[in-house]
């Protein structure tokens, strides 16, 4: 579970957040808010970044990659009551978000992991 220690690199289920220096030029702002879903789940067990009240997180996209601007520390929360991924706290900064993938022999391609 969350030990309240801020960090800059973590895996939360299939979501990986890694701190980077900057958002690439030309990236498009696609979403902003105090809460942002960074890992969608069909069953509603989303991975959600939650900032403090009054703080806005921004999500950008360029060339199929997703970046996040966290102006202050935020919690990454799993919206699931049982067997949930423990909350992680990320330090302020710019992050790249990756989604875990695995191979499918049936389709012969790499696919996003189902969480």
């Amino acid at each position, binding site marked *: *579970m969350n030990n309240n220690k801020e*960090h800059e*690199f*973590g*895996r*939360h*289920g299939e979501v*990986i957040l*890694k701190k980077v220096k900057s958002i690439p030029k030309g990236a498009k702002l696609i979403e902003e808010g105090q809460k942002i879903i960074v890992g969608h789940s*069909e*069953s*509603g067990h989303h991975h959600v970044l939650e900032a403090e009240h009054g703080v806005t997180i921004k999500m950008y996209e360029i060339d199929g990659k997703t970046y996040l601007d966290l102006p202050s520390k935020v919690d990454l929360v*799993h919206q699931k009551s049982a*067997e*949930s*991924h*423990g*909350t*992680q706290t990320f330090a302020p900064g710019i992050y790249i978000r*990756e*989604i*875990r*993938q*695995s*191979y*499918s*022999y*049936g*389709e012969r391609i*790499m*696919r*996003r*992991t*189902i969480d």
Partner: protein
Amino acid sequence: MEYRTRIDSLTEKEKSQMADYAKKWIDVGLKTGETDWDTFDKYMPIVYKKANLKYPSRIIRVNSPLVGALSASVAEGIWKKRRDAVRGAVRGAVRGAVRGAVDGAVRDAVRGAVRDAVDDAVDGAVRDAVDGAVRDAVDGAVRDAVGDAVRDAVDDAVDGAVRGAVDGAVRDAVQTAISTARNAGVSLAWHNLWGGQFWVGYWWYGVATVNFLFDICKLKLSKDIMERAEANRKISESVNYIWPNSEFVMVCARPTKINRDDQGRLHSDAGMAIQYPDGWGLYMIHGIRFEEDLFDKVITGKMSFSEILKIENTEQRLQAMRLNPNALMSEHPKLINKSERGNELWLIEGSEVNTFYDAPKVYLLGFIDPSKEAPNNVMYEEVNPDDVERTQDPDEINAIHCKLTLAEYQKLEYET
């Protein structure tokens, strides 16, 4: 504002707006929730007028395309029996009055290369996103289901279509129509429909392309054509399927939900992927349709490999494998390597799995899922054999799956 009556080329600014415009129409095509009945009621009469047809007094709203398809085709059958000269389904006339007329006018006003460029970028994107994913699945399901009509589901809608004209004889007529059709092996003409929101990118110069030329490129044609185009647009924005008939119009409510995967295919591992207000819908996993019972088994993640092999449909089997990766561990894999971090690389050879996948070697990565309690906290994922060619280090394989370099993965401390 300066309008054009002819377009021979697109500006860079216009070209740059195609993607966003297509997205806007994809959103229209996939819209769920409240149906805009008022807009439909306002513009559908215009469509009939343009087709030189009298607008029927019987407008029936239905809550799923299954009910609409069955009811419309049965009602059409009843009306045909009652009136020899009845026109019946008027889909061709109605669609020709709007889309056909607009198509022709746009074709004349816009140079071929421009049309093709816009069609590919706008309609093509919308078609792929909406048509292929949704329309085909729903169409197919309704087509399959027609033969298994449930009379009670049809009753109310058919009643609405013929109320006042055949009063007490409706139930007998419905029963007779269905029995007669079935006994004669006749398929009900459920397919005389108009796609509404699902056809916004359909076929050549669909609603999306035509309106891109109007909205962005400022094309303006004759008043009559613009009215037809507007009616087509408004109807497409307001409702789901439509069954236009000379005696009635049956129109379907929007779905209450549409879920898709990251490739735009209908998908949900938590229930129906598309569902309508009356509860009817489809269980779909990555674009593959499942019956409810099998769906419930597949999504548990606890199917054994032998259970999966019993699934007759190949595509359903593949999806079941995907959602039950741990099933592979029952096939006596060999442990190749285990890291200090606890990651494992396994190999399956000479098993039915290899036949199933047509792959002589099937590799699996085993890793700890911190959200689960031991001993059920080891997850398994299939591994690309090309990656195993380069490395048999399970930590490096796990790094690849996390889209990290090995050095980055080794610094990853926080995993929950």
